[in-house]
């Protein structure tokens, strides 16, 4: 993973010093609250319903064991002993004291972490595939490009005060998308052209929130070396032309839609003519330098299916289930990718305690070269585990509650913190997730359902990605009471789509039965190989609607 040099260290330390000064001026009254607000947001600090919320960057989801232990220590010292993993592969503290944040930042800097641009109307953390570098089907490792983008976007002087937040994602798998990249402001897809040269397919204007839109292609091939000048050009067009009169219409997706993607592309190309082939052009030396941080670890030469592993799988149904669901193919023989699921019933989705963080750090050291990755659906990946160690790892993960074999299934939900914590929420989301986990606790039933994304957001800001869940649940306010609107048919993959609303919303207590009815319609209609999304796309909304809203006799 990337290691800071003197320049990187100096920049994050100077940002911490700057933020300490801003905090001091806020407390001595020379910086007004409304002047401090955008500055603290640009450093990941919200003031929430109950306390400040402090979001720390995990660039493209990569964390070392050392960093995990530092997060554990900080959560104990400055918070209530747990943190929350976010849908942007970041991590949040929910209860720090504003006055302590500069000290927390110094601690974070000491392990090469920061909170720069984790919030605010600026360029946010670039996300990518949690299986980057180890997936069997990727074109190449996307992380060096994410790091190059991280550096370019960090404290970019021209784009610190954009109309609205700005999110970039990089995908390198031709046939899958684990990053929900098509709902980012810019989705970059690593591709090769007919001459076998590396470049990017560029899509813009995806997003969730009040106006969910799937990103549109504006360039089918951008040569690798022009990455930064092209990004500069997109951002400049957006900075100058994006709406600033209404924050709900300020994202780039609204501009792209208003202009049409073709016209937007024209403006970008015209701007780019002025910016390309200048000093921002990436050098091979720089690409090689950054790639040098993402080389393969010291893999052992192993047989792909060691007998110790195959025997255990035959002996233990639970182990075999877990392998089937939570363990993925690795590009190296004898290795596997393990996803630890943070979806234990009764624990808010994505929350992890200081003790668990330390144990995960130990597991990373023991099984996976001391590194983990955070996923956008609140799980943790150990990317390089030897298959002959999986059984031992499984036993450890089980005692932590991290081995519920439900990855990608109904109960592996994305769920925002909701009205329990968030000042924006219309409704609570955690209790809905918990009620569904209780209702659907039969694993055999869940397996029989197959892959099914269920996503829950407590308001239309859509932090829980409800638009792109196969089943989406949105908390709404109905005359002061909390209600839930259901949408069906969303998808976050290569064939990303926005879900359609089923109909009038429901009270919280009705939700488990509503979801059960929806699932029953699927079970009755599916063909042998169909996943929920396939059946929905074939039979449409009507049968689901009829069942859910049928009058009781």
């Amino acid at each position, binding site marked *: 993973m990337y290691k800071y040099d003197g320049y990187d260290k100096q920049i994050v330390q100077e940002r911490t010093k*700057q933020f300490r000064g801003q905090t001091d001026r806020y407390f001595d009254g020379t910086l007004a609250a409304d002047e401090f607000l955008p500055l603290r947001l640009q450093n990941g600090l919200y003031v929430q319903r109950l306390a400040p919320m402090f979001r720390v960057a995990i660039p493209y989801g990569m964390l070392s064991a050392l960093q995990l232990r530092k997060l554990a220590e900080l959560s104990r010292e400055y918070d209530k002993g747990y943190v929350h993993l976010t849908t942007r592969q970041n991590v949040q503290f929910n209860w720090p004291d504003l006055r302590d944040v500069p000290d927390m930042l110094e601690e974070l800097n000491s392990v090469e972490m920061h909170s720069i641009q984790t919030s605010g109307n600026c360029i946010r953390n670039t996300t990518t595939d949690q299986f980057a570098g180890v997936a069997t089907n990727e074109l190449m490792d996307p992380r060096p490009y994410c790091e190059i983008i991280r550096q370019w*976007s960090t404290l970019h*002087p021209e784009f610190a005060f954009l109309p609205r937040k700005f999110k970039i994602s990089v995908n390198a798998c031709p046939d899958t998308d684990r990053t929900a990249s098509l709902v980012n402001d810019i989705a970059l897809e690593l591709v090769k052209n007919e001459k076998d040269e590396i470049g990017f397919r560029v899509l813009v204007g995806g997003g969730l929130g009040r106006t969910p839109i799937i990103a549109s292609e504006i360039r089918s091939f951008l040569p690798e070396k022009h990455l930064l000048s092209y990004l500069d050009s997109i951002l400049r067009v957006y900075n100058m032309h994006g709406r600033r009169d209404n924050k709900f219409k300020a994202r780039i997706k609204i501009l792209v839609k208003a202009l049409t993607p073709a016209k937007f592309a024209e403006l970008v190309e015209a701007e780019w003519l002025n910016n390309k082939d200048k000093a921002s052009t990436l050098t091979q030396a720089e690409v090689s330098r950054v790639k040098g941080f993402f080389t393969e670890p010291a893999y052992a030469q192993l047989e792909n299916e060691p007998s110790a592993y195959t025997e255990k799988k035959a002996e233990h149904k639970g182990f075999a289930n877990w392998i089937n669901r939570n363990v993925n193919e690795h590009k190296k023989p004898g290795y596997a990718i393990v996803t630890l699921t943070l979806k234990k019933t009764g624990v808010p989705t994505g929350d992890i305690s200081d003790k668990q963080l330390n144990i995960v750090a130990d597991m990373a050291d023991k099984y996976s070269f001391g590194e983990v990755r955070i996923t956008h659906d609140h799980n943790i990946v150990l990317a390089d585990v030897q298959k002959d160690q999986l059984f031992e790892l499984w036993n450890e993960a089980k005692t932590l509650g991290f081995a519920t074999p439900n990855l990608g299934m109904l109960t592996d939900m994305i769920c925002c913190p909701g009205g329990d914590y968030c000042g924006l929420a219309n409704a609570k989301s955690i209790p809905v997730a918990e009620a569904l986990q209780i209702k659907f606790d039969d694993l055999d039933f869940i397996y029989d359902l197959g892959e099914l994304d269920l996503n829950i957001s407590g308001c239309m800001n859509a932090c829980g990605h409800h638009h792109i869940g196969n089943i989406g649940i949105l908390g709404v306010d109905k005359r002061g009471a909390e209600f839930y609107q259901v949408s069906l048919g969303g998808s976050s993959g290569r064939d990303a789509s926005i879900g359609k609303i089923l109909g009038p919303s429901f009270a919280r207590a009705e939700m488990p039965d509503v979801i059960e009815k929806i699932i029953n319609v699927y079970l009755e209609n599916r063909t042998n190989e169909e996943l929920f999304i396939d059946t929905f796309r074939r039979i449409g909304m009507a049968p689901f609607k009829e069942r859910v809203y049928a009058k009781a006799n």
Partner: protein
Amino acid sequence: MPKLINKSEIIENTWQTLDKDFSGKLPDGSILVPLNYLLENPLILDSNPNIGIWLDSDQNSEALEPYLNKLSLIAINFPKFVDGRGYSYARILRDRLDYQGELRAIGDILHDQLFYLKRCGFDSFAVREDKNIEVALQGLEDFSDSYQIATDQPEPLFRRR
């Protein structure tokens, strides 16, 4: 007398800014004239050396291209400091149109924007009058280096590290 930061010096601000919809005869003294007035009265730059032109945040600096050889002061207004359009207008003036004269940030100009403004080519800063300009001045030096190119640094860090 209000003050402004010129390069890194604090000096008196003797400039009077005329309203965006100003019309009629120009007053005496050093004046910042709105873009619209210039577009309607393009000859003013020939007769009066004490004129600068100011742009509002919805006015792209490309509009000044025909006048640049006669201009020694351009000001860009930030009606709210969170309105970041002026940063792009400044870079277009400096990097594309090769404007060499003074470029001043006016309006809601605060301590914590100065470093970014400087990077985008501003070299004078009319800090909001209710703020302590001596303290704000320190904001110009918040960072000693940067990753990306901008007007103040034509080479990205990756070509220098």
